[in-house]
């Protein structure tokens, strides 16, 4: 297990797809090994994280505190395994360390802890907060005259938190056009409202609701297929082009548990742990040779 080579060109869509595949493999391997972690959201966000960390973001993994780096906050902090897999593969820390996730003395705390792991720009985990910190970073960059851009990734369930809209209001008021908020719109939250019966859970928002809300708050909104790497890369290129003075929201339509046929769209996979058979199937579906030791 090694980190991936740096992608030289954000337009190299195949390389970004391979990064996303590897992120999913490490997410499943990590959760299967340590038997904890949020699987569904870590899989739905994998393509966006690949496009950010292997494409759009200006970062230096060997200089995690480089002042002019682009910032990222995982506002949906519970999907930390996805971010950890991304950072490891990008070269911030050894991929092997992923298997320490949530164990005693680990740098990979259950939710991101910036005091422990270089490469994390903010500690998050209580929903609705990472976007506020991102607004602060964008304001700081403007005051400091830094070219740094700020990205934050929210969940669609998280957008029920009122503080998200406080942040959206202030970002718009300050015309923070170097701030990009991406919503991982996987249409499921942990439990949510009941649909036709107990097993049928309704999406956190009505169709179109996120686009209209972010637009109403004064953001430039792009809606994409959050699993189509070309669309993601194009959206991030547009979002960072400062075509006008508005902050940018990317509504990424995704599937919870994306990549594992048995988990896709299943709300219980928010935190479910795979059985040995499910792990083997997952690795096969992700195109990864089954690791006999890990599957045991």
């Amino acid at each position: 297990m090694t980190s991936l080579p740096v992608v030289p060109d954000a337009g190299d869509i195949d390389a970004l797809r391979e990064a996303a595949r590897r992120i999913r493999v490490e997410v499943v391997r990590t959760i299967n090994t340590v038997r904890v972690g949020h699987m569904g959201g870590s899989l739905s966000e994998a393509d966006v994280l690949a496009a950010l960390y292997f494409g759009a973001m200006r970062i230096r993994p060997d200089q995690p505190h480089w002042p002019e780096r682009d910032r990222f906050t995982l506002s949906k902090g519970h999907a930390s395994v996805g971010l950890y897999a991304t950072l490891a593969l990008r070269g911030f820390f050894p991929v092997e360390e992923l298997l320490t996730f949530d164990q005693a003395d680990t740098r990979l705390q259950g939710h991101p802890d910036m005091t422990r792991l270089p490469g994390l720009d903010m500690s998050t985990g209580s929903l609705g907060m990472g976007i506020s910190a991102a607004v602060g970073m964008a304001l700081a960059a403007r005051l400091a005259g830094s070219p740094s851009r700020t990205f934050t990734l929210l969940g669609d369930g998280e957008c029920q938190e009122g503080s998200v809209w406080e942040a959206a209001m202030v970002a718009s008021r300050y015309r923070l056009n170097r701030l990009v908020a991406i919503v991982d719109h996987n249409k499921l939250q942990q439990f949510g409202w009941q649909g036709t019966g107990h097993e049928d859970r309704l999406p956190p928002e009505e169709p179109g609701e996120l686009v209209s809300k972010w637009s109403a708050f004064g953001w430039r909104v792009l809606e994409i297929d959050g699993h189509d790497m070309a669309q993601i890369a194009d959206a991030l290129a547009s979002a960072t082009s400062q075509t006008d003075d508005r902050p940018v929201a990317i509504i990424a339509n995704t599937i919870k548990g994306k990549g594992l046929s048995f988990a896709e769209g299943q709300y219980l996979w928010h935190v479910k742990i795979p059985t040995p058979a499910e792990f083997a199937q997952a690795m096969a579906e992700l195109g990864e040779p089954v690791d006999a030791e890990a599957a045991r």
Partner: protein
Amino acid sequence: MTLPMGRAMREVFGETVTALADTDPRVVMLDGDLGTSTRAEIFERAHPERFLQMGIAEQNMLGVAAGMAASGFMPFISTFVAFAVVRPLDQIRVLIAQPKLNVKIIGSYAGLFVGAAGKTHQIVDDISIMRAMPNMVTISPADDVETGQAIRWAAAYDGPVYIRLVRDVTQRLFDDAYAFDVAKSVVVREGTDVTLISTGAETPRVVDAAEILAQTGTSCHVLHVPTLKPLDVAGIVAAANKTGLVVTVEEHSIIGGLGGAVAETLGEHSPTAMKRLGLQDTFGESASNADLLDRFGLSSNRVAEQVTAFLAQRARR
């Protein structure tokens, strides 16, 4: 003889942070639409580019402060204690205290004096909450002199600090020779019969109470505790041992605040008979400042009465 009136702490807040910003480009002021009340408006006039209006959205304001601190700025928060501590408490916990970010939360309108706004704006448990928060330095200055020094200390310290300030003009306890030390409590009067321990703007009233008690032959040892965390354990134990009887006095709930902190300290290090004066597990209410102090037993006369009663009760044992 009573202590003279000083200047309002909030005026000192506006002036001191403005002066800090003159020489420190990291200093920014985040205001929750109360700058005219907290006197952060002084900062806006001097440094408009670093005065960041956050609107009536305090949860976001504390989160923005965390993000700016993570990028090297030193945000000062301008709002009332009610909206600086209680409303955005989870943002303070997760985004500021846990990562130990360099945010200065300066809560104005601490205690009962909130301009006749009543119980919604009177937060009587902010000390309890903030001193229980890991990594959070918690300071309750006695007067305008100590306020200015505490703010300057906070700016020199790298980490989260909470300072609670009183809206209205209060009595001045210290002169310009005073030197605030975050690690130290201050003996403001020597005595032999009973130890009075106080914090914040209550301390000058307690000093006046000691003067009243002296007229009837009771000698009070008075200790001012400006820093609730880190707590000066040795200073509190020494003051308690001086007389063997302790009365704590605070414009705050007796649960978890100064009284709670002193009880914890003495229970562990030097068990001492004590009485806690302050809000007795109740909320505030609307009334004039004088009436509020009288009603909650915090005026000099009421403190003196209660100390006398406590001593009489102890003498009957």
